[in-house]
């Protein structure tokens, strides 16, 4: 019986059809998806913090309105993704509790600080840019609800990247001080952005299985290369340099070569020793616990309305 179900599942994957919520699926496929979608959802809502930090200090009303819209989008993206995860038989509350208990992760990129306004530009251009390269292939993920959530997210994400690029372009063409601020932000965000694609292929044990299941469509190194190739000409337009002396065009490969990534830093941040890990988690947990009264009040109000409606009907 299980063999038959498994064959049916594999046929669905091989024919490039989508797996939908109530279909039979191997437990390992379900678990992999819950872990990946939850981590993705957590990243969206933790990702509100480094930018939320700048809403009150944005340099103009226009920039403030844009930044608020962007941070609101991140909350929306978190919601789409928690909804997708819930179709796999977990609840949003369980996932949040796991995040708060430190038992599920979010992207390590959000553990870096945002000390200057130029960081809003660098996050939009590089961090959201890397996220888009990662996420576009996920729109074709074999699991239907995840793919559909990613389609919505990718549509909205492109405004995020363009507004970041625009911030950096303005600063780069501004005063010498503003140009230096833009360069400093790019210098700090470039390497962490490259790390967003995950460990190199030969050290990424789960990748092969995810690709066989068509959850993932390209390897970490392929996507990283694609991002580097896209970013170099964009940096030239910005008039900013990328902090890698080994970055050179390789005619034979048809790609840019780039320097070695410091994976010990990546591991340290993953382990909880990045510059802002503690701060991000404390803020998330306190927002959740201090917001409990709002959830309670809404639940009590809904209950009172139900009781009233029942009373007037009787």
């Amino acid at each position, binding site marked *: 019986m299980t063999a038959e179900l498994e064959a049916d599942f594999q046929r669905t994957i091989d024919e490039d059809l989508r797996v*939908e919520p*109530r*279909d*039979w699926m191997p437990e390992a496929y379900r678990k992999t998806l819950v872990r990946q979608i939850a981590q993705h959802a957590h990243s969206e809502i933790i990702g509100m913090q480094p930018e939320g930090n700048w809403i009150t200090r944005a340099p103009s009303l226009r920039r403030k309105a844009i930044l608020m*819209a962007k941070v*609101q*989008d991140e909350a*929306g993206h978190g*919601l*789409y993704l928690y*909804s997708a995860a*819930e179709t796999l038989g977990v*609840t*949003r*509350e369980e996932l*949040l*509790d796991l995040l*708060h*208990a*430190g*038992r599920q992760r979010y992207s390590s990129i959000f553990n870096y600080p945002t000390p200057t306004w130029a960081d809003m530009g660098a996050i939009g251009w590089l961090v959201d840019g890397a996220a888009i390269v990662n996420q576009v292939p996920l729109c074709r993920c074999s699991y239907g609800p995840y793919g*559909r*959530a990613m389609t*919505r997210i990718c549509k*909205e994400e492109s405004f995020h990247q363009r507004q970041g690029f625009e911030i950096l372009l303005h600063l780069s063409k501004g005063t010498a001080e503003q140009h230096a601020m833009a360069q400093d932000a790019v210098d700090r965000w470039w390497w962490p952005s490259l790390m967003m694609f995950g460990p190199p292929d030969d050290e990424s044990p789960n990748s092969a299985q995810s690709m066989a299941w068509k959850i993932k469509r390209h390897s970490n190194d392929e996507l990283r290369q694609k991002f580097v190739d896209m970013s170099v000409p964009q940096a030239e337009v910005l008039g900013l340099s990328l902090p890698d002396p080994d970055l050179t065009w390789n005619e034979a490969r048809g790609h840019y070569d780039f320097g070695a990534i410091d994976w010990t830093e990546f591991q340290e941040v993953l382990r909880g020793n990045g510059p802002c890990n503690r701060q991000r988690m*404390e803020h998330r*947990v*306190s927002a*959740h*616990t201090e*917001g*409990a*009264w*709002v*959830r*309670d009040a*809404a*639940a*009590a*109000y*809904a209950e009172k*309305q*139900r009781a009233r409606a029942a009373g007037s009907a009787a």
Partner: protein
Amino acid sequence: MSSGTVGGTSPAGAEQTRTAPTTLWEVFVRSKRGLSHNHVGSLHAPDAEMALRNARDVYTRRQEGVSIWVVPASEIVASSPDEKDSFFDPAADKVYRHPTFYDIPAEVQHL
């Protein structure tokens, strides 16, 4: 006792905290007049009114809709994927339900 959280509420006690679940709603949006409502996703809310407001904020931030339906997910009755073959089989051998089944002389117009 808070219904939002159960157990310890301090950040340090987060691992004992369990957040109370709220109702899950499925959201359907009519993108413009003349089109039907389409399923766009789901969300959590304590009651229908807040579900509608949340749906507006989550699913129509860029003018994606002119009308929204929200339905408690638990109220939806669905066919079972396990019987997808037998359930839809009766339609498989009735090709005569399609206009292309019929042989009509080529010179016949408007048919």
